[in-house]
């Protein structure tokens, strides 16, 4: 995808696939899958450390060198704006002042549906504190545009519930968001397989963020490659512009003349 980078907050990335680091067997598999995905932006969660762990225990950040990857700390598990802001302040300190973050404020533990009122409150606060906020949101165009208005650098509507692998449930809402938003639109959550990612990109999304679809595949490294290809194929397809649909009207691809026939 030469010369066709994803630009977020003024920085260009040569992959439109963003990946998470959860649910892998170990850090080795994490790194191999990320390498196969070609992703440049990689999400991490922020959690209390185990007290009394052995010295020399591996650290996720050791397998994700910052010269190769942009680390995107998330607020997964936060149910209030206050907790999300607190978490990202810690993340910024942990990552040496790094400003790009993924905001997600959840509203319900069963569905992990985003809590949009709290998300808006957190986004406003974070933008005021100088964070570059990529916001996980519902596929409601009004909400997505509010986040943009508050200064978020990207909006990330769900395709379906986090970790559900149900694919894109409402392409029409996504299309409205894509058509209206000026900041990049990334589909985040719900991708199950490569065709889902391709469909998202064909709709005109700027990128796709996924974790479980890769980590929980039978062969995560192979699925990571499949996702890379799907995102590239979907983007190319979007840029190429699909042929018009012609319902109930076939059109042969082969010449209609010059056919051999039984002599009359």
């Amino acid at each position: 995808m030469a010369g066709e980078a994803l630009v977020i907050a003024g920085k260009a990335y040569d992959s439109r696939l963003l990946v998470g680091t959860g649910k892998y067997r170990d850090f080795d598999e994490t790194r191999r899958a990320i390498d196969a995905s070609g992703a440049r932006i990689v999400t991490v969660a922020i959690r209390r450390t185990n007290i009394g762990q052995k010295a020399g225990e591996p650290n996720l950040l050791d397998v994700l060198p910052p010269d190769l990857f942009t680390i995107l700390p998330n607020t997964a598990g936060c149910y209030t704006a206050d907790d999300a802001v607190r978490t990202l302040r810690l993340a910024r300190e942990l990552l040496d002042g790094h400003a790009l973050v993924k905001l997600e404020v959840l509203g319900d533990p069963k569905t992990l549906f985003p809590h949009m009122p709290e998300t808006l409150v957190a986004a406003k606060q974070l933008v005021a504190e100088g964070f570059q906020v990529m916001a996980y949101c519902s596929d409601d165009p009004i909400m997505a545009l509010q986040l943009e208005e508050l200064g978020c650098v990207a909006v990330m509507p769900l395709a379906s519930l986090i970790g559900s692998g149900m694919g894109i449930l409402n392409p029409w809402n996504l299309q409205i968001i894509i058509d209206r938003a000026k900041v990049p639109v990334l589909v985040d959550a719900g991708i199950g397989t490569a065709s889902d990612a391709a469909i998202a990109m064909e709709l005109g999304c700027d990128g796709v963020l996924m974790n479980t679809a890769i980590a929980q595949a039978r062969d995560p490294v192979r699925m990571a490659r499949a996702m890379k290809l799907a995102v590239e194929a979907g983007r190319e397809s979007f840029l190429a512009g699909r042929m018009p649909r012609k319902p109930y009207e076939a059109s042969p691809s082969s010449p209609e003349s010059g056919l051999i026939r039984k002599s009359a």
Partner: protein
Amino acid sequence: MPQPIRITVNGAPREFATAPTVAQFLDEMNLAGRRLAVERNGEIVPRSLFPEQRLAEGDTIEVVVAVGGG
């Protein structure tokens, strides 16, 4: 005469014979040198202040790291 202090670390109570600095506290918790961030009573403690900032009775400390997540 140094007084022992009780603090809460990642939700669990801890006691120290004398009030440690943040750096001494991390050392004692076997966390020195790790990629982590520290919050004290809701405020970030910048890494540069680890050697000088001293914990006090009743402090609530959070020590966080990056872990796998989406």
